[in-house]
């Protein structure tokens, strides 16, 4: 497993070099959502005793931790298809599990950074929520799920263009339907059932409960941990498969 720190270190170096660009780009989406949906559309909306802004921020935390941890797929693809650095990693005496761990750790780090950006933005909008241990645990598990998924898909795609296609199929629908912008329980019964299959629905619910100071349901945490573990193992097999 020693090699995972070399992989992680490389991703951190890249992140450090692009730090201000990354942070700026991480802020654009949430700022627009907060202005458009929070201040504009949801100004007079109350949901379960909370303002729409208070409702929206945990949703954005869940959504952004998903998109930012999944974004590691693009970094892997650039390294694999453009710079061909994946070959350098493969030629090193490190196990594929170390490679997957390093990349997943990098994905989680990106996600945590993006959540920090949202917390600062929330403060600018005058919203203070409870960022307790359950909040951060939900964020980490959510990032673990999507960083592992990112490594899987990055190994399966045959070109950088395929990656964008997969993002459209997996991430965009989840971002809009996984309880980010509206409560899932307001959807028709059949839709609620279907949305329970999305990991983001559980992540958004867990993050929201924690940030409202409520005791989150353990089921969401167990489910996210189980899906994350499954995808992590799958990522390991996908890296093995990518060898040929």
């Amino acid at each position: 497993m020693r090699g995972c720190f070399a992989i992680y270190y490389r991703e951190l170096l890249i992140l450090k070099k692009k730090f201000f660009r990354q942070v700026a780009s991480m802020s654009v989406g949430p700022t627009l959502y907060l202005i458009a949906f929070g201040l504009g559309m949801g100004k007079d909306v109350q949901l379960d005793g909370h303002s729409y802004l208070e409702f929206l921020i945990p949703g954005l935390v869940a959504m952004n931790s998903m998109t930012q941890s999944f974004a590691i797929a693009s970094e892997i693809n650039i390294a694999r298809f453009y710079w061909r650095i994946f070959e350098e990693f493969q030629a090193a005496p490190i196990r594929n599990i170390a490679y997957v761990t390093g990349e997943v750790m990098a994905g989680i780090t990106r996600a945590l950074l993006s959540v920090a950006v949202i917390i600062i933005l929330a403060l600018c909008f005058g919203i203070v929520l409870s960022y307790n241990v359950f909040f951060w645990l939900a964020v980490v598990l959510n990032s673990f799920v999507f960083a592992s998924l990112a490594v899987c898909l990055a190994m399966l795609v045959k070109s950088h263009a395929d990656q964008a296609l997969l993002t459209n199929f997996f991430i965009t629908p989840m971002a809009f339907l996984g309880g980010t912008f509206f409560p899932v329980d307001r959807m028709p019964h059949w839709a609620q059932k279907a949305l329970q299959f999305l990991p983001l629905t559980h992540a958004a619910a867990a993050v929201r409960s924690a940030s409202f100071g409520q005791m989150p349901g353990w089921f969401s945490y167990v489910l996210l941990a189980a899906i994350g573990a499954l995808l992590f193992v799958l990522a390991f097999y996908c890296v093995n498969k990518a060898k040929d």
Partner: protein
Amino acid sequence: MIRIEKLTKHYKTVRALQGIDLQVAAGELFAYLGPNGSGKTTTIRILTGLSRPTSGDAYLHGFHVEHDTLKVKKECGLVPQTINLDHELTVFENMDIHGRLFHMPARERLRRIDELLEYVEIQERKSSPIKQLSGGMKRRVMVARALMHSPRILFLDEPTVGLDPGIRRRIWSLIKRIQQAGATIFLTTHYIEEAEFLAERVAFLDEGRIIAVDTPHNLMAHLGSWALDEIANGEMETTYFKDRGEANRHIQGQEGSFSLRRVNLEDVFIFLTGKKVVP
């Protein structure tokens, strides 16, 4: 040393390697010659643990490439055909990450980076981002990076492709120095003069099969010392002679365009396969 036994590699319908048997001695500079698609890179990928063989065995210093992959990877350094440096990072950072990947302690990494950048004469560009380097400099950084963990075997896959003649010769002298320092070098190239100048032994590869292995001198001696190129009816024909006098006697009394030159390895390859070694 490198030992390859009945190695095959099939990609769906393509038979990239069709039963390779080969031995390379420790400290030898060995050239693997063949046209594009002949299986050179596939062989290197298998030997460095990047790809799995379909059948057969290969050993590096006694370690099996499939069963002892991590040990094999520690034994060898690889300079791939395409530049695979991290363009967003500096020369130092690229080499440092390589050292970390090979579990080198921090102090050793720093010492080795300085030593190797000095060795490939690029010390002054240590802090430069890769994207600011010329093609020749990138190649030298790749060689330095491959040597970071002091491998006993260095695989060079077309190390001078796309470089101008001056830089190519600079890389050649670097390769010679590496071998003189004790490393075994396995070089693939389609530049015949590169193999002739550098290699102690040469293998010709064609359509996944080794068709000849010997020293450049012995391979060329089979044909003779002199080659006479003659253009007749718009086609070039080459005839080989033991000495220059014999070639001159052949030309006497004939009309046409002739060119007399020394036999080279390309003649041997064309003689064996009927094909040219072209990229």
